[in-house]
């Protein structure tokens, strides 16, 4: 019928773009990860060889892959709970009936979210400069020894985590705020009449009611944090001593610096598999019910 045809005409442009520039490349990446596609193959496709799972096997034996994975997992495991905690805290402050000037505070806390990562990373690099940065100056006022924030392999990742929390917490804050506003006020009313403390109200009303929001925010934040790239690219260039090389950073270097596109595709797929597994795990854990704090790790 005619309406079928016009429906497909409406869909065609978007589907062609998504098919050719996303779906096709994803499938090609899978194929590419099974070959030794490198600079020689880039010059002449006849140099291409099928290597099966060879790239994956080699990656699993490379220390740099494991350390990149370790840094990324560290970033996710520390950064996501911190970031969600900050979001929830800010949302609860904004939701309090005692808070003044709410629109101003909401905008101010959200502002870092819309800024460009590269630009604000440049600012943080300056704020956390060892010699003349504001952070060390403040520490000095408190009588604390200066910290080599971005130059010490032990401090570089924590500094990047602080940066990411500052940059991102406003996003989830807005979602939590909507979640909090959707909780019926009579629940709190009843709890107050029963004499429940604010902590018990938080523990037994706020957290359970926010659980669906929590799970969704958790999944989105975890998958976002696994894609760490621009922050180390600008702030540390993966250093010092490769302590901030993330999985995507490794993929970028492997693919676009050394032109080992086969091996880089394998890195990308391993990251995808890991993200998928963690998402499934989080959904499973939350379905198990009595994981009442809802904090995915």
């Amino acid at each position, binding site marked *: 019928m005619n*309406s079928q045809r016009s429906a*497909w005409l*409406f*869909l065609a*442009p*978007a589907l062609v*773009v*998504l098919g050719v*520039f*996303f779906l096709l*490349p*994803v499938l*090609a*990446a899978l194929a590419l990860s099974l070959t030794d596609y490198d600079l020689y193959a880039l010059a002449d496709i006849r140099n291409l060889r099928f290597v099966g799972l060879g790239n994956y096997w080699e990656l699993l034996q490379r220390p740099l892959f494991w350390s990149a994975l370790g840094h990324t997992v560290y970033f996710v495991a520390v950064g996501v709970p911190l970031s969600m905690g900050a979001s929830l805290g*800010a949302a609860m*402050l904004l939701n309090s009936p*005692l808070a*003044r000037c709410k629109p101003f505070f909401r905008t*101010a*806390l*959200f*502002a*870092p979210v*819309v*800024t*460009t*990562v*590269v*630009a*604000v990373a*440049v*600012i*943080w690099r*300056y*704020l956390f400069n060892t*010699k*003349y*940065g*504001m952070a060390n*100056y403040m520490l000095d006022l408190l009588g604390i020894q200066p910290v080599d924030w971005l130059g010490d392999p032990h401090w570089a990742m924590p500094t990047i985590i602080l940066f990411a929390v500052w940059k991102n917490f*406003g*996003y989830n804050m*807005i979602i939590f705020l909507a979640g909090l506003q959707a909780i019926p006020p009579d629940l709190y009313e009843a709890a107050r009449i029963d004499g429940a403390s604010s902590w018990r109200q938080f523990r037994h009303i706020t957290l359970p009611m926010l659980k669906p929001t929590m799970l*969704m925010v958790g999944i*989105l934040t975890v*998958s976002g944090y*696994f*894609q760490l*790239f*621009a922050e180390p690219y*600008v702030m540390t260039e993966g250093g010092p001593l490769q302590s901030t090389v993330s999985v*995507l950073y490794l*993929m970028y270097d492997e*693919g*676009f610096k050394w032109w080992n*596109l086969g091996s*880089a*595709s394998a890195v*990308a797929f391993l990251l*995808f598999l890991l993200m998928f597994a963690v998402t499934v795990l989080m959904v499973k854990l939350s379905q198990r019910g009595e994981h009442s704090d809802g904090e995915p790790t």
Partner: protein
Amino acid sequence: MSPRLMKALINGLLIGAAAVALFPLLWMLSVSFMAPGEASALPPSLLPKHSSWANYRELFVHAGMGRYLLNSLLVAGAITALSLVFNLMAGYAFAKLRFAGRERLFQALLGALVIPAQVAMLPLFLLLKYIGLINSYAGVVVPAMATVFGIFLVRQYTRSIPDELLEAARIDGAGEWRIFAQIVLPLLKPIVVTLAIFTFLAAWNDFMWPLIVLTGQEHYTLPIGLASLAREHAQDSELMMAGSVVTVLPVLLLFLAMQRYYLQGLLLGSVKG
């Protein structure tokens, strides 16, 4: 705790949090007007002694910032315009037009959201190299012309339009394109604005793909240009802060002007990840 104390505590915490959120941005603005070297003095100065536009002049005259700014406007503008058209058409079709396999196709698209974009980047680079789009604006724009998120957003919103309205127009003999352009589009105005701001901000701030595909300076967008400047001029804090202001200010102002639409889209898009 007395309500008075509670009120002071809550508002005090809010003021503290807002200060932490805004301080880096305000200081960036202040340092961008300082003379070279002034920002690396101890103790750090909060305000410039003699504020001047010298850093901005340096950026635009010698560092090619004007070109980057134009490139960013061009690329983000083109992505916004084209992806709006494509996403609106597809989202409308998924919401209101009947065709075989509609639900299954839509579910498949949503399923594709779990695949991180970076997986596609390596073959996409080869594909664009093959069709000659490396180091061109089109290399950034073309792959971004449709997004699952945009289609999803439009579909959710369009479903609230009553079917009777469209049926009535069909009975009157209006063609599908006319119904879309004259009846549906005007009703979709709020979501068009929301999606436009969302897309523009995302395109403006995007880093990894432009970094890969734009190999020549003449095509750099602001984030790429700024990152490359930051590697050359690591010590010129004042100059770098001015560069950050130029990069951040346009999107920050756009957000402030259109905040309501942006936050609404954020909530709509997160109803079902």
